[in-house]
């Protein structure tokens, strides 16, 4: 019965790592919808206005029929333009819906799996791992690898390639010291970010101001400040004051905070601010999902034996009767070194433990079976870890509670 508890699968609580899978498409739909609405509203205003003006002009005889036809053509073109844009949004919407469907079905599959020991869970979990790896690769800008992985595993609809590729492009451009892409991103998403007081755009404008000041274009810097910075004085007063102070401090200054404002590290600050804004907007966790999974997994698997200087009798690479523990395996051993391990309140050892004269403890059956396999004469046992051979009379029972 106790074993059943260990393999119980509770899908509800198991889905912690899978939320962004469904949340991101919601945000994408929302964005898609808002942009559509903005375009419609904009073109509606324009069209109704134009239509009214044309009617008036025609009525009052100010415009001849060919001019009337001309303005009608303009209106038609504008509407066709709107239609084209909406066609794009509609296509994107279809993609999002298809992906959501795939994702819901993938998660739904988990609900059909009876236990963690089921083969189907293994398959499901492998898909999840590939997803987590793809997420990690994308966040680190290894988009070609992510694309290749998603393609090979057929999980393209479970991976948000485009979102992350765009995000990484903007991030990289900021780290290189270029703002154009990020400003374009801000204007594309202005409708959506307004409620989360737009610090990112302000900081970008401030950076533009700093760059103008660095080059010594004082006049342009002041104009720029009037246009983009001083309007924020209400909720960004200290920053605006600092910007004003910067005018009086040359790039060589050692005075804080101006020295920091001129420093190259501000680009990393901007890149990180962009990432934060971006991830918040799309309901994405701030760090790769793989970090969450690994951190929890390594802690759960790690035991004091994994970084011990003595080979563990119950799991080591030197004998064929044990499998190598994943934490002891070269891939993860260093990574797990500085993590804490979870608590154990009960000893767990092999069935019917016995101890050899060298202090090594094994399950009796495993030891005897192994010794027989080695072709030892009866009454002799071989330590599978150290290869020492002992007489069976030297083997003692050990009591472990």
């Amino acid at each position, binding site marked *: 019965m106790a074993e059943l508890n260990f*393999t119980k699968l509770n*899908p509800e609580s198991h889905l*912690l*790592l899978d*939320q962004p899978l*469904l*949340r991101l498409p*919601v945000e994408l739909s929302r964005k898609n919808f808002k942009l*559509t609405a903005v375009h*419609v509203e904009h073109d509606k205003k324009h069209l*109704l206005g134009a239509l009214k003006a044309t*009617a008036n002009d025609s009525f009052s005889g100010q415009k001849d*029929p060919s001019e*009337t036809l001309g303005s*009608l053509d303009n209106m*038609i073109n504008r*509407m066709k333009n709107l*239609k084209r844009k*909406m066609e794009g949004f509609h296509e994107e919407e279809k993609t999002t819906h298809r992906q959501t469907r795939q994702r819901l*079905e993938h998660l739904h599959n988990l609900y059909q799996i009876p236990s963690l020991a089921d083969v189907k869970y293994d398959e499901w*979990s492998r898909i*999840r*791992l590939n997803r987590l790896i793809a997420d990690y*690769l994308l966040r680190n*800008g*290894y988009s070609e*690898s992510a694309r*290749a992985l998603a393609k090979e595993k057929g999980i393209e609809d479970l991976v948000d390639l485009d979102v992350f590729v765009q995000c990484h492009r903007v991030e990289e451009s900021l780290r290189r010291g270029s703002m154009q892409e990020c400003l374009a991103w801000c204007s594309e998403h202005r409708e959506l970010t307004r409620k989360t007081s737009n610090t990112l755009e302000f900081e970008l404008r401030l950076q533009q101001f700093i760059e103008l000041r660095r080059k010594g274009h004082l006049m342009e810097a002041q104009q720029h400040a009037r246009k983009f910075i001083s309007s924020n004085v209400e909720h960004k007063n200290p920053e605006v004051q600092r910007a004003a102070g910067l005018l009086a401090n040359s790039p060589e200054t050692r005075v804080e905070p101006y020295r920091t404002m001129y420093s190259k590290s501000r680009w990393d600050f901007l890149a990180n601010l962009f990432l934060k804004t971006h991830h918040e907007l799309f309901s994405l966790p701030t760090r790769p999902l793989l*970090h969450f*999974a*690994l*951190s*929890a*997994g390594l*802690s*759960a*698997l790690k*035991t004091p034996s994994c970084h011990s200087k003595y080979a563990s*009798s*119950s*799991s080591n690479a030197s*004998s*064929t009767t044990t499998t190598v*523990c994943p*934490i*002891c395996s*070269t*891939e*993860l051993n260093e*990574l797990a070194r500085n*993590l*804490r391990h*979870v608590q154990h*309140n009960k*000893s767990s050892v092999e069935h019917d433990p016995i101890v050899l004269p060298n*202090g090594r*403890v094994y399950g009796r059956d495993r030891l005897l079976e192994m010794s027989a396999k080695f*072709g030892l004469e009866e009454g002799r046992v071989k330590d599978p870890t150290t290869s020492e051979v002992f007489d069976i009379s030297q083997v003692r029972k050990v*009591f472990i*509670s």
Partner: protein
Amino acid sequence: MEALLAEHERLSKSGTLQKSFDDVQKTIDLLVKARERIAADPALASLELAKLQNPVKSSFDDVHKDLEEVRKHQTKYAKLLDKKFKDKSLPQMDYEALTSQPALINRAIAMHLLREGRFSVASTFLTEATRNQSPDAMTDDLTMSGTEHDLGIDSLKSESLRKQFANMYHILHEMKTERNLVPAIEWAREKAFELDRRGSNLEFELGKLQFVWLFVGNHPSKGRPNLVEGRERALAYVRHQLSRFQPRYSRELQQLGGAIAFCPNLQQSPYRRMFANDDAWDDIATSFTREFCSLLGLSADSPLYIAATAGAIALPHFSKLEVIMKDKRTEWTTEHEIPVEVPLPPSYRFHSIFVCPVSKEQTTDRNPPMMMPCGHVVAKESLEKLSKHSRFKCPYCPSESHPRDAMKIFL
């Protein structure tokens, strides 16, 4: 989940931009028709334009209505999703240990891809990952990688590991789909010394399976099975290839000989299990994979897979702990231990664990388990406290002993 699926079904049926898109088309039609009429009879321009105002306006109203419908559906679905994931946030743990080691994570991923046989993805990744690696990260990576297995990400690039795994997959492929054991047998013979030291009888098991395969009439050159010829080939195989296993596996070899006597009536013989065992192929593939990986110092299943899966199982427990900690306003108190138990399925438990029955602490290198002459075990620190360096009574039985008679044991 069903509710979400149903709501999404509704959303993708009636909550789409399709309708508003159609209504925009209608507006265009209105404009185009009016233009045609005006072009045909310019005198009607004013009238047509006046007549156009209201329909255009109302067609825009339709678009708005359509959009409102979309918004309603979207909100409904989003709300359901919120409800589903309410109170389910990812716990904040010590991620610093991971974020500070990107090179190690990259290496773990690269090795995972290699051992899964994803060679093209792995090579794409190795190219991308080393392209923008700073020189610092490279040297770090090299110095930390052990002397025994130099597995820095650069050494992965050097193809040696890739070749190893390519070889492994080649052997497995031959074994599983072609039923060809020859590459595996050759590998095992090459590694005979290492395998023997591990106590592995893989080489013999492979030979035995090869014998069975030949015996039932199969043919190395894939001809039609022929029982008589097969028997001869199998006998020849035993004589030439398996005889050198004689001293150690004499019993098994006798069994093989005994089976020959029963032919062709094997199905009724006591040896039928040896011959009609399809699982044998899967078993041998599994143990081959395990031996192959172990000789490289690696576990048989991908550690990244096991760790990520264990992580998903453990995460809810950490979340729960976080909630409790917040409620009680306590902080992490232990340096090496997270104060929560995580029940993992048996296949995720690898090492034996000893928790001292006296101190209730897990034993470590510094505080190892000690066995008293009576066979009971406590942690070293507990032993010192109990004994105060003189004779003492075991906390579990009446026997008395001196602490210097206790023996350090290795679990």
